[in-house]
């Protein structure tokens, strides 16, 4: 057995409740009495964060819905620990304002860009299906958000499946049009994941993190005038755009909690679908890597 944990290594991405907690030093304060310190590592997207988490270089961090599927398929040593919810409105398919693409069906044969293995992948699959298309009906372009933004700007791609805050940033440009958001197409589940070993031994700490995050989130959502500049300072995203992302339908920073059966079912359905589409190489059982606090 290991000595009691004295450090929690948290991976974070710009935005979200974790960024706010970092800015406030809330977790540090919470754990100071226990002698536990927090270290922060910044990631630009979910996959590299899970890469580090699965490799044991991190203890705890947030991602979207799709990245954990790949991490599980790759046998990374990680578990689903909790959920948070964003707004499906923040995920969208974008086209140029003057684009001839007016409906989802118009995407047939066009170049659609998104990062493979990101939540935008899922959005693309489901939006296309709604329009009567499948992934094979469009030309897929695998681009990370920064590269896709550049490619979108100069017209190298016709459509772009993307999430907030990139959506909001792009929307601010008058030359951009939202073809459709993911609202009522995709559920906006996001997850907190933990390293498997860490979760096994530090269930208590994880529960406390959730408790703290929920408090920080509720406070922040209630006081957007303070939250917006704080978040904007962290991310470098302009304040008006930050405000817009925080005010999307259904969005709540305080919506942090333990993983629910509903989320597990959603995630299992997603895994099955992606396996059928041959996006992931094997059939996954989500409950295999769901962490539950030990009854004690």
């Amino acid at each position: 057995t290991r000595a009691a944990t004295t450090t929690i290594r948290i991976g974070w991405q710009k935005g979200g409740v974790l960024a706010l907690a970092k800015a406030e030093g809330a977790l540090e304060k919470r754990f100071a009495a226990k002698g536990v310190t927090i270290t922060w590592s910044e990631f630009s997207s979910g996959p590299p964060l899970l890469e580090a988490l699965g490799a044991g270089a991190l203890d705890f961090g947030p991602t979207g819905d799709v990245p954990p599927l790949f991490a599980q398929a790759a046998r990374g040593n990680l578990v689903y620990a909790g959920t948070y919810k964003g707004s499906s409105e923040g995920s969208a398919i974008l086209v140029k304002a003057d684009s001839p693409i007016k409906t989802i069906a118009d995407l047939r044969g066009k170049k659609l860009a998104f990062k493979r293995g990101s939540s935008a992948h899922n959005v693309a699959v489901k939006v296309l299906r709604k329009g009567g298309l499948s992934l094979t009906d469009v030309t897929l372009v695998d681009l990370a958000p920064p590269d896709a933004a550049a490619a979108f700007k100069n017209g190298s791609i016709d459509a772009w499946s993307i999430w907030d805050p990139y959506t909001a940033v792009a929307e601010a440009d008058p030359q951009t049009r939202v073809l459709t958001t993911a609202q009522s197409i995709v559920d906006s589940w996001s997850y907190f994941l933990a390293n498997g070993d860490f979760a096994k031994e530090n269930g208590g700490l994880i529960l406390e993190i959730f408790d703290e995050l929920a408090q920080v989130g509720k406070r922040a959502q209630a006081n957007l005038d303070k939250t917006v500049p704080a978040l904007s300072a962290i991310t470098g995203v302009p304040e008006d755009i930050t405000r817009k992302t925080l005010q999307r339908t259904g969005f709540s920073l305080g919506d942090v909690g333990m993983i629910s059966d509903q989320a597990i079912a959603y995630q299992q359905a997603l895994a099955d679908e992606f396996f059928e589409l041959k996006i992931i190489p094997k059939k996954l059982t989500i409950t295999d890597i769901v962490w539950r606090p030990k009854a004690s």
Partner: protein
Amino acid sequence: MALADLTFSRTLKQTNKRIPSFPRLDRAHVLPLVVPVTLIALWQFGSSTGFISDRIMPSPVAVTQAFWSEAASGDLGHNILVSAGRALAGLLVGGTIGFLLGIINGVSKLSEQLTDTTLQMVRTIPHLALIPLVILWFGIGEEAKLFLTSLGVLFPIYLNTYHGVRNVDRDLLEMGRIYGMSRWSLFRKVIFPGALPSIFVGLRYALGIMWLTLIVSESIAASSGLGYMANNAREFMMTDVVVLALVIYALLGKLADVIARRLEGWTLSWNAAYQK
């Protein structure tokens, strides 16, 4: 021991000749294999006994299996071919530009003073940092990849061509003038062959850098190629494929080097240093 090896090298050669059971040629061929083979054996041993967790490093057997499955599906061959095509195109474009710049700057003081400093500064810009601009300028197609690879190849060829031309024996140049060579003859008969050994050094550096740049450029919206395979494997955390990609890069690097050396030995047959 060590220094003796160097200073008594003549004596050593002598000695080796006299041990027929361990001839020099074989020794030179076998010794370089000792370290890699030992490492791989240890690695497999460690993996089999569980001493090296396959989380940290997939076993050689796993990598070999990854190789077979990638090779069997035809993906591996296809990816290598695609990358090789991109590499060659970049080598051709970047190499030509670097070569011409090197010749011009080597021959003209004015052009050198005008452009050398600029080129030297551009040289230190990381390709990774250039990607957003490259996408803005060239989009996400093959042009962007060609641009990046060419840029990577350009500088070693430029630098070495330039130095090669600069260091062409001044006595030979004067000789050319004395015998009334035209400018074109002077270039063809004196400057170019004189700079050739140095250009080959540049080529070998360029071949190394070529693969390095390729993986960066293949992170832009590629759907095939070695870089795509490596980037993809990383994203889906398939460590066996990651290691496979590394091994293939190493082998390709070695192959390119061997080809360059052959070419060198063949073109520079007049040079005693390249005669075996």
